């Protein structure tokens, strides 16, 4: 029994944390708010130098060939500092899908460039007025001379500005296919949308007969939905680590402020209304961390309970992040309500992730299915009836 990160993993965390502290943590995020893409690209280069982008890429594709658990401390630190960019989408969604379901050519094309931070991926899934459900994918792809012609609209696509490639679920003959589209492909029009979370840019993408080689399809033409869902397990395991990291920073902020700020002649952290609320945050945080460690472990070991473990981690970590980010403002009082203090950046990101790549509600159903509770006939085996 050893339910902890290894010494190496913790050491790697320290490198990443040190690097992010050197660039003043949320400065990258704040620069991005003001339209400075450069700082973000520099941070990506910096993270690449540390090895963050190579970790889970197989050695034959210029990576380090490490496991899912090795990504945990990285995502936690990225979350803590709210580093903008497509780290989760590239490392926890695109890379595993390509590695597991991509053609040899795709692996050779993309995995080394992910490892070298030359390729970054976003995902264009949602369509206007539609859902994250299978039926929500209506963007049409027509066969045309060995290619697919894509026609339709995707919306709320994050950070296209930072992406070299876009993963696009499309509809081909009533099946869902997953296509990799280069972000500068002809026929693709990007219209920026205003974003509630200013540290993530949003766009609407118009596909006007965008031509994509069938070589760009991940897996078979009818496998897109299954591959995407497999990829989402990896994504959500990574996301839950990210959320844990962000929440940890929040707890730290609240705790530090409560020890410094005085009212009525006492640090506010002496008042149980504040004191116990920070304890509640801490307890939720550690529970989210336990769930997220376990989620990543099930992913790494392909454990039979991986779906419910990963979905549980995502749900709980999301709820925890939303609650903690909101409570953090209340603990900070007036100053927490200002743009100047970082509190609000976490609140906004908490709502960004709330229903990102799948509604919370749908995730409930996914876990419930995995636990067999929709199969009414099947009884739970209890060792002994109480």
């Amino acid at each position, binding site marked *: 029994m050893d339910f902890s990160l290894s010494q190496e993993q913790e050491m790697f965390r320290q490198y990443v944390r040190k690097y992010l502290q050197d660039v003043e943590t949320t400065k990258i995020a704040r620069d991005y708010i003001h339209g400075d893409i450069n700082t973000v690209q520099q941070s990506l280069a910096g993270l690449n130098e540390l090895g963050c982008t190579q970790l889970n890429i197989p050695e034959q594709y210029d990576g380090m060939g490490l496991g899912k658990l090795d990504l945990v401390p990285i995502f936690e630190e990225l979350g803590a500092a709210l580093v903008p960019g497509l780290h989760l989408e590239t490392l926890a969604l695109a890379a595993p899908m390509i590695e597991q379901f991509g053609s040899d050519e795709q692996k050779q094309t993309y995995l080394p460039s992910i490892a070298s931070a030359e390729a970054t991926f976003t995902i264009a899934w949602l369509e206007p007025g539609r*859902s994250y459900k299978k039926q929500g994918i209506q963007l049409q792809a027509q066969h045309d001379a060995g290619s697919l012609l894509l026609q339709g609209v995707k919306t709320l696509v994050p950070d296209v500005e930072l992406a070299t490639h876009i993963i696009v679920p499309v509809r081909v003959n009533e099946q869902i296919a997953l296509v990799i589209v280069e972000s500068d492909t002809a026929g693709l029009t990007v219209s920026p949308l205003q974003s509630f979370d200013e540290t993530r840019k949003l766009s609407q993408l118009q596909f006007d007969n965008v031509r994509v080689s069938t070589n760009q399809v991940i897996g078979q033409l009818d496998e897109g939905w299954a591959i995407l869902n497999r990829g989402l397990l990896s994504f959500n395991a990574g996301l839950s680590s990210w959320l844990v990291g962000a929440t940890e920073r929040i707890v730290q902020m609240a705790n530090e402020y409560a020890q410094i700020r005085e009212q009525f002649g006492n640090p506010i952290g002496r008042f149980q209304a504040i004191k116990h609320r920070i304890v509640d945050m801490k307890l939720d945080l550690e529970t989210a961390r336990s769930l997220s460690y376990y989620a990543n472990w099930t992913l790494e070991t392909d454990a039979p309970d991986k779906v419910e473990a990963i979905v549980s981690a995502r749900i709980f970590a999301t709820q925890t992040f939303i609650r903690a980010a909101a409570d953090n403002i*209340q603990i900070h009082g007036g100053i927490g309500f*200002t743009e100047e203090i970082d509190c609000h950046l976490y609140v906004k990101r908490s709502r960004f992730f709330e229903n990102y790549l799948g509604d919370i509600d749908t995730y409930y159903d996914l876990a419930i299915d995995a636990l067999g509770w929709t199969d009414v006939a099947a009884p739970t085996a209890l060792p002994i009836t109480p």
Partner: protein
Amino acid sequence: MDFAYTQQEEQFRLELRTWLEENLPEGWLDGTFNMPEEQAAYGQFLRDWQRKLSEGNWAAIAWPKKHGGRDATLMEEIIYHQEMVRVQAPPAINYVGLHMVGPTLMQIGSPEQQEKYIAKILSGEEVWCQGYSEPNAGSDLAAVQTTAVKDGDKWIINGQKIWTSFAHFADRCFLVARTSKGEKKHHGITCFLLDMNQPGVEVRPIIQMDGEHDFNEVYLNDAVAYEADVIGNVDDGWRVTIALLMHERTGIGAQVFSLEQQFDALVELARSVTTDDEALIEQREVRKRLLDLYIKSRGSLLNYYRNLTKQLKVGHPGVEGSMDKLFVSEVTKELFSEAISLQGHQAITWKQDAIYGDSYWQKNYLYSFGQTIGGGTSEIQKNTIAERILGLPKDIGK
């Protein structure tokens, strides 16, 4: 028990409603009017609106007739709030002047002060702000550190105020400063009617998490006030600040009526927003969450009416206002948080790209975080309720 309005009250409502329909800016009621965005123009627009209100005797209805008010009854004030919320009237730029400084001047101002200020407050010619909070005295008003030192016929004022609404528009400030060290923290405080248009006063904006600018920091570097600017007695400002704060409570009604309206808007949202052609309200769980909010927003309104009844009977507001304030602000926060959740991932848009134009939901969601902080945090309200209604022991540090 009787929820009916008297004929006189209904008459009052009709008169106000008619006046508003005739006097609101063109396009206001159908939503086509655009508020000026630039700050000076926005300020001027609000001043003009107040002048118009005052010309119709609608700026400060609770004031005595001799000062340009209507000697309105409490019920008429309630109706006034209801109607203003109904049309989402422009905010009162001189809120502090009309609802706090004006009544306080009438209560304890000298005849000269009354003469000098009251009419201009009403017309909006002089906008007021309120210099209470300081960086180290947020919830703890008695800890004020700004000093005023007597120098001949002048008072020299130094210090810093924060969370000063309307300071960027204001001509005068109702300022609290320490004039001597008393035995108890709330002794030795004096209230000044400070001229904002002087070199010793610097106003810096505070930008909120919703991107708006409602508050300011006010830096006082050898700012000057005169004998005539002292209201009440020197060193006896605590009593004056309490008098002023007592007048602030009438704002709760507006919040309660707004909450009603916001709840209706949420139901409308759930009806009109669809994913895959299914309206949100078609989901049973959405309806159940709406019902929880319905119950709470009704509860907030009915609590307010119940306290109002008591107020009507005893003739003055009671400490129950703390309960109303706590409840309505917490429920408002919950409502907007739910509104964001209900919209799913579509909620992450902003301004013109949001589901409701100008990101009504997102902005109000962010703004709602301030409501459980400003005007006394929820924690402070709870202490007040605990100690003054329930008789529980005083907290540490008090």
